[in-house]
């Protein structure tokens, strides 16, 4: 429970800080700390169900602090968490470079999904070309750069709240019947 509340508070504070930071950075280059936290939590969180609840809360908070429809980011962040949770058990993507690649790819797909969902609810965006795709690309790059920082923060919080053993979730390796 301490872990749950700690990350809930950290997530909300990160998003609020991002709102202040966004005043000084052009939107595409401003990293999405809330999304990065969800990705990093997906790679480290011990159980899927409680992690989903936490991400649901964080997603709805993001919707409240943003201009999106209520539930829009919550929906996508639940998917992002589930993908990161599964991918984190199959591959070792906590190291800096794989993490940056994973966070960048997920961020880009998240942007595409968010755009399509917005179009679905509001109709076609008038006068818009492919500019949003470039914005999404640069935003993904910014997220990739900041992913190791948020991952480090996550690791420190895990270490602080529950100790070393929870921070080092074992990588599950399944050995097939024909091995050796």
């Amino acid at each position, binding site marked *: *429970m301490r872990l749950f509340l700690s990350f809930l508070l950290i997530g909300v504070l990160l998003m609020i*800080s991002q709102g202040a930071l966004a005043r000084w950075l052009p939107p595409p280059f401003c990293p999405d700390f809330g999304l990065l936290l969800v990705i990093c939590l997906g790679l480290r969180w011990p159980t899927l169900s*409680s992690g989903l609840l936490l991400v649901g809360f964080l997603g709805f908070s993001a919707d409240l602090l943003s*201009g999106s429809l*209520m*539930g829009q980011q919550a929906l996508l962040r639940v998917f992002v968490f589930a993908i990161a949770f599964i991918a984190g058990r199959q591959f070792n993507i906590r190291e800096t470079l794989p993490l940056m690649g994973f966070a960048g790819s997920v961020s880009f797909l998240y942007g595409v999904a968010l755009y399509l969902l917005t179009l679905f609810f509001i109709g076609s965006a008038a006068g818009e070309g492919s500019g949003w795709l470039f*914005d999404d690309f640069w935003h993904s790059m910014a997220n990739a750069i900041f992913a190791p920082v948020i991952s480090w923060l996550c690791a420190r919080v895990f270490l602080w709240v529950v100790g070393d053993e929870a921070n080092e979730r074992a990588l599950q390796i399944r050995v097939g019947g024909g091995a050796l």
Partner: protein
Amino acid sequence: MPGFLKSLSAPIAFGGLIILAVVSMVADRTGRLDPDRQDLPWWQGVLLEMAIPVQKVLAAPANAVLQSWNSYVDLVDVRAENEGLRLRVAELEEANLQFREALVASGHLERIAAMRDDFEVPMQPSEVVGLDVSPFFRSVLVDRGSRHGIRPGSPVITDEGVVGVVTRTSPHAAKTMLVLDRQSRVDAVIQRNRARGMVSGNGSGELGFEFVVLGADVQIGDRVITSGLGGVYPKGLDLGQVTTVSDLSGSLVQSASLKPAVDFGRLEQVFVMLRVGPTMELLYGGDGPPLGESAESEAGGDIVDTAGSPPAS
């Protein structure tokens, strides 16, 4: 509680959250037709309330540095600019005098004064404390809310032009959707020839101006203003200037791009009009008392009466 969390099976949690999110989205989209929609519930509003002081503290150092730099830059050419402005003021005063004389002579002054009464609305000065936490949406958080008479649907402007419209409020905060947002649409006319169209945000720094009939004369540099027909914004507020015109071959309409009148990169002080247009009354509800009547007058938050000083062109 940890036992409860652990006992939740992942598929149920996943499915439940998906359903909740989809229902919330649909409800949020269609809920705008609910005439009872007012403030956010307290458990949602508390997040906006919490964001205001934190973002103010976080933005303060950077604000101070930027303000000092801007002051320095502004001072560099201030003498020459002052002389130019004095000359311009003198010219405008002269022109104004001539217009007044002409109006008095034709007996139209009383009618114009009556029209001005329709346009004058009290305004609430507010400070922008934070931007959207998602780069895919363009909204800002301002530090005045329902306690100050602001309601969803209140237009937000600056002395330069239209900023956006309030979408959600809590007692001391209001979220404003900028005209740059993809969800924003404003009915507009070209000031020069009254050609009508729809100004829409596309999520970037520019505005789109569409549905201009193909034969309409749209030129680069034309100013586009609110038509007042959308029911959200009063007529005559500046939206922007035409930068490019696209003649879509085979189409019955043409489109243009606008440079917004407001510099959204330097948005700090805004004015919330304490009046909701007829369309917004329909969308956001109109059961409450007339705006401005219930507004608290707090320190530094006095309502500005715009008598004699229309906010924009």
